[in-house]
C-alpha cells in the first residue's frame, strides 16, 4: 500500500533530494501520524454531537472515583470506604476495583497541570479512551511489523483505527476500563512476541510491565495469563521450543505474577485461583523441558534418554496432578468462578447465574453484530489465517492462536468482540497487505517487462522468458488491476461503514437520548440528568435511593445520593432483595424498604416516549433474580400462559406489584398518542391493564418532563392514633 501511495508523491520527494529509503520512512511516519489523528478524531462524534460528557453506566463510577483520586490523593483512594453505595453494607472501593484507568487519567491530569494546562478532570476522562485508541494504532503497527512486515503494520494500524468493534468501547466519553485495557492487552502481546522473537530479557521485562498495567486496568487480564501459556504449550508441542521462548516466558511469568500481586483486587489469585493455574503448570513444564534438554545434551545414549524421559514425564505429571488435587481439596486453590465457566460454556450462566445472564453485554453474539462490528474483516480474517499458515513462524502462530481463541470468546459474549478486534484487524491486515503487495509486484515487473520488450529488439533470454509468461496469461495485468481496484473498493466501503456505524450507533451517550421530531428536527430527552439533578438538589444529603442496579452508579455520581445496589453486582442477595421489593405488593414491599431505610424509589419508565429499555422491560430479570434467592417470588405468577404482558390480560400479581404501580401511577389518565385510549403504553404498544392505581405508602415526588424517570418518596409511617 505504501508503495502505491508512494508513486505520485515520489516526484515531490525527489525534489527534496531524499533517498528511497528516507522517502519510505517519511511516508510511513506521516501515514502513522495521520492514522493516529484519525483514530482520535473519529471518536469525537459524541462530543461534537452532544457534549463533552461521560457515557453510560460504569464510566460514571470510574469518573467518580477518578474525581475522588484527584481530590484526595492516592492513599485516600486506596483506603476509600464508600458509604454511598450498597447501603447499609458499603463498599471498599480501593480493594474492589482495577485502579489502572483512574490512575492513568489522574496522571495525565497531573502532567497537564504540571505543563500549565488547567484542564478539568472531566475533559481528561472523556478523552482518555480516544487517546489510548490512538496509542493502540501505534502498537498495532509495531505488532504488524513484528509478525509480518511494515506494510501489514500500516494496514493493521489503519484497520484498527476505525474498526467499530473497538470504537464501541472507546469513543470520547466512554471512560471505561476497556478503553485503556485493549491498549494494554495488545501492548503486552506485542512485547511478548518481540521477546520471543529476540530472546531478549529487556523485552520480556517490558512485557511483564505491560502485563502489570493490564492487570491494573481490567479483569480481562485472565485472557492473557491463559493465552500465553497455551501458546507456549503449542510451541512446545510443535517442537518450536527454544532458549528465546524459555527466557521470554519465564521472565514474563515470574515478574508479571509478582507485579500483579501488587494490585489489591487481584492479590494472591495468581497462586491461588484455578483460572491462573494453567500459567503455573506451563511454567513448571518449561523447567522440566529445560532440564530434559540439558540431560539430553549430557547423555549421548538415546535409549537411556528415552527411559529417563519416560520416568521424568510420569513423575512430573503425577506430582503436578497431586499438587493440584491437594490444593483443590484443601481449598487453597479456589475453583473456577461462574464468569469463567460461562465463558467456556455459553449456557452455564443462563441456568445458574441469572445476574450474569441478565446483563445485555453478556449475551451470545448474533451474526449481525459480527457483521456490524467487523464488516469486511470477517472475510479477510480467514484469508489472513491462510497467509499466516503459509508463512508459519513463532509470531504468526501467536497471532493465529490469539485470533482463534478470541473469536470463540467473541461468539460467547457480545462484549468480548472487543478483545477479538485487534487480532481480527492484524490478521486481516496481513491478508490485505500480502494481497496488495503481490498484485503490485506483478504490475511493476510486467510494466518493466513491456518496457524492456519494446526497447530491446532481439532481447535477452530473460526478457524472452518474461514475454513467454505474458503470452501464457494474457489478462494478468488487467486482472491484477481489477483485483487491486476491488480491494480498494472493499477497503473504502469498510471505511464508510465504520464512519457510519461510529456516528449512528456508537456515539450516543445513552444518558441523553435523541430522537427525530415530527419535522425532522432533533428532539433531546435529557430526563436522566433532570432526575439525577433533582435528587442532588432537592433531597436530604443522606437520603437513600432504591432503584434497579443499572442506575446505581449514575445516581451516586450524578445524584450524589446513597443507593442500595449498583452496577458492581458483587452481592447477589442484596440485588435480589431489591428485586423482591419491586416484584411484591406494595404493603409487602414497604416492609422491605423500611428495613433498608429507603427514602426514595426511582424507576425508569418509557411508556410515554416509547423508550424500550425501561424497568418494565427489565422487570422479568428482577423477578428471576429475586426469585433465585427468595422462593416467595415465582416467575409464573407474573406470566400468563408463559407470556409477559402488561395489558388487561396480564397476571393479577403483575398488575399489582410495586414496579407496575410505580411505573404506571396516574398513567391511565394520560393521552400518549392521538387516536389511542388514555394509558396507551407506547413502548409496548398496548393499553395498560390497571389504570386505577392508588399508592398507600409512597407518593410521587418527581417525574421528569418526558416521564422517563419517576421518583417516589416513601412516606413516614402513619401515627398510630
Amino acid at each position, binding site marked *: 500500500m505504501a508503495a502505491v501511495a508512494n508513486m505520485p508523491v515520489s516526484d515531490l520527494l525527489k525534489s527534496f533530494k531524499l533517498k528511497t529509503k528516507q522517502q519510505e520512512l517519511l511516508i510511513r511516519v506521516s501515514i502513522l501520524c495521520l492514522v493516529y489523528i484519525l483514530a482520535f478524531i473519529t471518536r469525537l462524534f459524541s462530543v461534537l454531537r452532544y457534549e463533552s460528557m461521560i457515557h453510560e453506566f460504569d464510566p460514571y463510577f470510574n469518573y467518580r472515583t477518578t474525581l475522588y483520586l484527584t481530590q484526595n490523593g492516592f492513599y485516600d483512594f486506596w483506603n476509600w470506604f464508600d458509604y454511598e453505595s450498597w447501603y447499609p453494607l458499603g463498599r471498599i472501593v480501593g480493594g474492589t476495583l482495577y485502579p489502572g484507568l483512574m490512575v492513568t487519567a489522574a496522571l495525565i491530569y497531573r502532567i497537564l497541570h504540571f505543563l500549565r494546562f488547567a484542564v478539568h478532570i472531566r475533559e481528561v476522562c472523556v478523552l482518555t479512551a480516544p487517546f489510548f485508541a490512538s496509542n493502540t494504532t501505534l502498537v498495532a503497527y509495531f505488532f504488524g511489523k513484528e509478525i509480518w512486515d511494515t506494510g501489514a503494520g500500516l494496514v493493521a494500524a489503519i484497520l484498527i483505527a476505525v474498526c467499530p468493534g473497538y470504537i464501541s468501547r472507546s469513543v470520547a466519553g466512554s471512560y471505561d476500563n476497556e478503553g485503556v485495557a485493549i491498549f494494554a492487552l495488545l501492548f503486552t502481546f506485542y512485547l511478548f512476541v518481540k521477546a520471543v522473537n529476540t530472546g531478549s530479557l529487556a523485552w520480556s521485562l517490558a512485557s511483564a510491565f505491560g502485563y502489570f498495567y493490564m492487570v491494573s486496568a481490567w479483569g480481562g487480564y485472565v485472557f492473557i495469563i491463559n493465552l500465553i501459556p497455551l501458546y507456549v504449550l503449542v510451541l512446545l508441542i510443535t517442537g518450536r521450543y527454544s532458549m528465546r521462548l524459555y527466557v521470554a516466558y519465564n521472565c514474563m511469568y515470574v515478574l508479571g505474577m509478582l507485579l500483579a500481586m501488587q494490585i489489591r483486587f487481584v492479590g494472591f489469585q495468581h497462586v491461588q485461583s484455578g483460572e491462573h493455574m494453567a500459567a503455573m503448570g506451563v511454567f513448571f513444564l518449561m523447567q522440566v523441558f529445560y532440564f530434559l534438554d540439558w540431560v539430553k545434551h549430557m547423555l549421548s545414549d538415546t535409549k537411556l534418554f528415552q527411559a529417563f524421559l519416560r520416568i521424568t514425564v510420569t513423575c512430573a505429571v503425577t506430582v503436578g496432578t497431586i499438587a493440584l488435587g491437594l490444593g483443590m481439596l484443601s481449598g487453597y486453590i479456589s475453583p473456577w468462578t461462574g464468569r469463567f465457566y460461562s465463558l467456556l460454556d455459553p449456557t452455564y450462566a443462563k441456568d445458574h447465574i441469572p445476574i450474569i445472564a441478565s446483563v445485555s453485554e453478556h449475551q451470545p453474539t448474533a451474526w449481525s453484530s459480527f457483521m456490524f462490528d467487523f464488516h469486511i474483516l470477517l472475510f479477510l480474517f480467514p484469508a489472513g489465517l491462510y497467509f499466516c499458515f503459509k508463512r508459519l513462524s513463532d509470531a504468526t502462530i501467536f497471532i493465529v492462536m490469539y485470533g482463534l481463541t478470541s473469536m470463540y470468546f467473541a461468539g460467547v459474549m457480545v462484549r468480548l468482540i472487543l478483545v477479538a478486534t485487534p487480532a481480527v484487524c492484524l490478521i486481516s491486515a496481513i491478508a490485505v497487505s500480502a494481497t496488495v503487495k503481490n498484485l503490485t509486484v506483478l504490475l511493476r515487473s510486467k510494466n518493466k517487462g513491456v518496457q524492456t520488450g519494446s526497447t530491446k529488439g532481439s532481447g535477452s533470454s530473460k526478457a524472452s522468458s518474461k514475454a513467454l509468461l505474458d503470452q501464457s496469461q494474457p489478462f494478468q495485468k488487467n486482472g491484477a488491476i481489477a483485483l487491486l481496484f476491488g480491494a480498494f473498493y472493499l477497503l473504502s466501503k469498510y471505511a464508510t461503514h465504520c464512519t457510519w456505524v461510529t456516528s449512528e450507533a456508537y456515539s450516543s451517550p445513552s*444518558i441523553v437520548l435523541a430522537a427525530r421530531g415530527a419535522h425532522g428536527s432533533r428532539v433531546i430527552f435529557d430526563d436522566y440528568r433532570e432526575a439525577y439533578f433533582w435528587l442532588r*438538589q432537592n433531597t436530604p444529603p443522606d437520603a437513600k435511593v432504591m432503584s434497579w442496579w443499572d442506575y446505581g452508579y449514575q445516581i451516586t455520581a450524578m445524584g450524589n445520593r446513597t443507593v442500595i445496589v449498583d452496577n458492581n453486582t458483587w452481592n447477589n442477595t442484596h440485588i435480589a432483595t431489591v428485586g423482591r421489593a419491586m416484584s411484591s405488593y406494595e404493603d409487602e414491599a414497604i416492609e422491605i424498604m423500611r428495613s433498608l431505610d429507603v427514602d426514595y424509589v426511582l424507576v425508569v419508565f418509557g411508556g410515554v416516549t416509547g423508550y424500550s429499555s425501561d424497568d418494565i422491560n427489565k422487570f422479568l430479570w428482577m423477578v428471576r433474580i429475586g426469585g433465585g434467592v427468595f422462593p416467595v417470588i415465582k416467575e409464573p405468577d407474573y406470566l400468563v400462559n408463559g407470556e409477559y404482558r402488561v395489558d388487561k390480560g396480564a397476571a393479577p400479581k403483575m398488575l399489582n406489584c410495586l414496579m407496575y404501580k410505580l411505573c404506571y401511577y396516574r398513567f391511565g389518565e394520560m393521552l400518549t398518542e392521538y387516536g389511542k385510549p388514555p394509558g396507551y403504553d407506547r413502548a409496548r404498544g398496548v393499553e395498560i391493564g390497571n389504570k386505577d392505581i392508588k399508592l398507600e405508602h409512597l407518593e410521587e415526588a*418527581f417525574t421528569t418532563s418526558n416521564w422517563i424517570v419517576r421518583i417516589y418518596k416513601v412516606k413516614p409511617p402513619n401515627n398510630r392514633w
Partner: protein
Amino acid sequence: MVQARLSWRLLLTVPDPDPVHNYLITLTTYKKRFTRESQTVEICPRMESSRFYFFLFALAIFASPALSDLLLSKVDRRVYLTSHIVRISSTLKVENAGPETVSEVLLAFPEQQAKNMAYLMATPHEGKGKVKNPVVALPVEVVNPKDMPPALTFFSVSLPKGLAEGGSFTFDVLAVFTHALRPIPEQITQADIQLVLFQDSAYYLSPYAVKAQSLTVKLPDSRIESYTKLESTKIHGSEIKYGPYENLPAFSYSPIAVHFESNQPFAVAQELVREIEISHWGNVQVTEHYKLVHGGAQSKGEFSRLDFQARPNVRGASAFRYLVANLPPRAHSVYYRDEIGNISTSHLRGDSKKTELLIEPRYPMFGGWRTAFTIGYGLPLQDFLYESEGKRFLNITYSSPMVELVIDTLIVKVVLPEGSSDISVAAPFHIEQWQETKISHLDIDGRPVIVLKKTNVVPEHNQYFQVYYRFNKLSMLREPLMLISGFFFFFVACIVYMHADISISKSSASYLAKQQWEEVQAVIQQVQNIVSRCLAIHDKLEASLRDLYRTGDIQACKAARKAADGVLKELSKELKPLLTTLQSSPSAAQILPKVEELVAKERELQEKVMVKHSTVVDGYEKKSGARDIENRVALQQQKLTALRQEVDDLLEFIDEI
C-alpha cells in the same frame, strides 16, 4: 371576619425567634413610658410575641426636642409589590421651621425593615415634564443619633446645600427590600396559589412631624386575600391607597398588612460567584455560578407531572420555569450548564442593544426547590477595557444580568492577566474586597484576582465599577513564547535522542555489529553517491552530443569529454578505498557482491559511453552523414540503455537493503 381569617392563618405559623421579640419589648416599654396618644386594640395572646404589626396602634414616642426643627410638609409613598423585591419609593418635601441652617435629614426605618434593606438611594426630586438630567445621588449614611429609640435604624441624607429657615427641599428616596414578603401559609401544595404578606405602617415613620402624606400599595394583580382597613382606605384594581393623612406627629405608626396572591418568580440566589476574566487577546470571559432557590412558600405533598403538564398555570402556578438574563450586547459563546453537564433548554436572542438569554432550569422550580447552574459568555474586550493615564481599567457591571433576582451573597472575582500590578478598585457602594491568585492555562505564578463580596444584592446594584491596573504589553507574548519554547525543546530533545548514543554496554556483540552495520551503510551510501555522480556525468556527455548535433561545435564537445574524463577518473579513485573498506568489513559480506557488480557495470557503462562519444565525434570530424553516424552508434546505444537499466536496478536494490 377578616381579622378572624387572619388569625386563623397565623396560628399555623411558628413564632419567630428573638430579634422581633426584642424589638417588640423595647417598643412596648417605650410605649408605656411615653405614650401620648394610644389606641388600644384587642390583643390576641398568641400574637403578642411575634406579630406586632397586626395591632393597630400608633406610636408616638418622642417629642424629639433635640432634633432640628425640620418638618415634612408632604410625603408620597409608593410601595411596589409587583415582584418579590419590595421597592418603596417616597417623595419627601422637607421644610425648615427652625432658625438654624440644616443640611442633614434623617430617615428612620424599623429594625425589621432595615435588616432586609438591600439598597437605599436618595436623589433630588425632578419635577414632572423636565428633561431628566443625570441624577446625582445624595450621600446617605447610617447614623446613630442620641436619644432615639434603639429599635429604629437611622440614615442621614446630606442635602446639596444647607436649608435656611423657611426653606424647603424635595427629594426622592428609593428603598429596596429583600425577603420582605412572607409566604402565608408557609407550605402549599402543587394546586395552591401562593399568598404572601406584606407589613408596613400606614403612616410614614419619621423623626419629624408630617403635615400631609399618602401611601399607595401596588400589587401584581387584583386578587387580594385581605388587607388592613383604616379610615380613608381605597382600593382601585390592584392598587390600595391609604390616606391622605394630615398633621401627624413624629414617630406615628399604624401597622398595616396586605395579604395577597403573588405568583411572581421568587428567585433567590443564595450564592452567586461571578468570575470576570480579562484576556488581552480580545475577550472578557464572564462565568457565573448560581445556587438558586425558590424563596416562596415551601411546596408540600406530591408533585404530579400529569397535573403540571395538563394545566401548568393552575397546578403549578407558584412554580417558575424560566429565568431571563439581559446580557450586554455582542455577548458571544454563551453556555449554560451545571455540574453534570450541559442544559439544553435555553434560548438566546440578540440585537445591537442587548442579548437576551432565556434559561430554563432542568425542572420547574417549586417552593423551596433548589438548583445550581453556571452560565458563561464572552464579551468583546474593547467594550469594557479602557486606558487612562498609563493605567488600564475594566468598566463592567457588578451584579448578575438576571431580571429580578435577589442575591444573598455575591462574590465577584476579577481575574486580571498574569503580570498585572498596581491594582485598585473603584465601586459605587461599599464592597468587602481582598486579593487571591488563580492558576490558569500557561501561568507560571498565577493571575491576580480581585475578590469583591457583598451580601443582599438586588438589581439596583447592577452598576458599573472599575478595576484599575498596570499591565505591560510585552507580557502578552509570554504565553505564546512559552508554547513555542515548549515545542522547541521537545523537538530538540527528539533530535538529541535520535543522534545520541544511549546504549549501556558499548562492548556487547550486538552493539558492535550494529555500529559496523551503520559504518557499512555509510560507505554504501558514499558508493551510491559516486555512482550517481558518474551517471550524471554520462548525462552531461549525452547532452554535449546533442549540442554537437545542433551546433556542430566539435571543440566544445571534445573539451566536455576531457573534463568528464578527468572527473570520472577522480571518482573512480575515490571509489577504490571505499570498496576496500567494504571488502574488509565482515557485516558487508551480504551486500558486497551486489556493490561490486554495480561498480563493474558502471565502469562498463562508462567505457561504452566514452566509446559512443568518441565515435560520434569522429564521425563529425570525418564529416560523415548523420545517418551513417546514427547507424554506427545504434548498436552501442542499445547496449547502453540495457546497461543503464541494470545499473538503475542495482542502485534501487541496494537502496532497499
